């Protein structure tokens, strides 16, 4: 029994440390990458997994403490994993809309980022300013 307890404690400690290291790397990516599109990668993937690890540790800890499964934190985990891609997508969409500059090494030249303002995508088509006489 005590051996099991120690083992569980080790697992929880591992998840806590792994999760916080992941979250730190994600935030580091946010701080040191060069352009917005590269900064987006760190938080949207790595920070989410980091927090997921911490929540798993919390599930294990409270299950151990209460002597039964206690899955409340699963709710936050699922919620984060569903919403992270959505907010990342919206953020990159607004960045493309504002035509934020990209790193010169970036390959590929999407029409959303090209400078001539004549070719607006459907999304950016002006809503109020009609060209009616």
């Amino acid at each position, binding site marked *: 029994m005590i051996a099991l307890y120690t083992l569980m404690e080790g697992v929880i400690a591992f998840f*806590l440390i792994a999760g916080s290291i992941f979250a730190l790397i994600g935030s580091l990516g946010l*701080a040191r990458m060069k352009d*917005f599109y590269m900064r987006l990668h760190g*938080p949207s993937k790595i920070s989410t997994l980091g*927090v997921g690890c911490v929540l798993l540790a919390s599930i294990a800890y409270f299950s151990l403490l209460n002597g039964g499964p206690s899955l409340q934190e699963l709710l*936050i985990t699922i919620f984060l994993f569903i*919403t992270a891609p*959505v907010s990342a997508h919206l953020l990159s969409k607004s960045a493309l809309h504002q035509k934020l500059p990209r790193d010169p090494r970036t390959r590929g030249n999407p029409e959303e980022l090209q400078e001539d303002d004549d070719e607006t995508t459907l999304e950016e088509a002006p809503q109020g300013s009609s060209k009616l006489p």
Partner: protein
Amino acid sequence: MLDFALKISVALFAIAIVLNLYRVAVGPSLPDRILALDTMYVNSIALIVLFGIWLGHRTYFEAALLIAMLGFVSTVAVCKYLLRGDIIE
């Protein structure tokens, strides 16, 4: 062992939040700042959960859940504002 791991973990998350704050302050563009705030609330959820483990009971679980929901909704709302210049159409 668990106590030690908790302390290290809280310290690492604190550093992560400081890095996010740096990006909020410096961030050359608006989406950068929104992204940094978004990351900051994700990290703060983790901090609250860690605090709950420290205390040994789950009074603060609902707070974490609320931060998760409000954070997501506010990120979406601000992005929508940047995209359309209007939140509710």
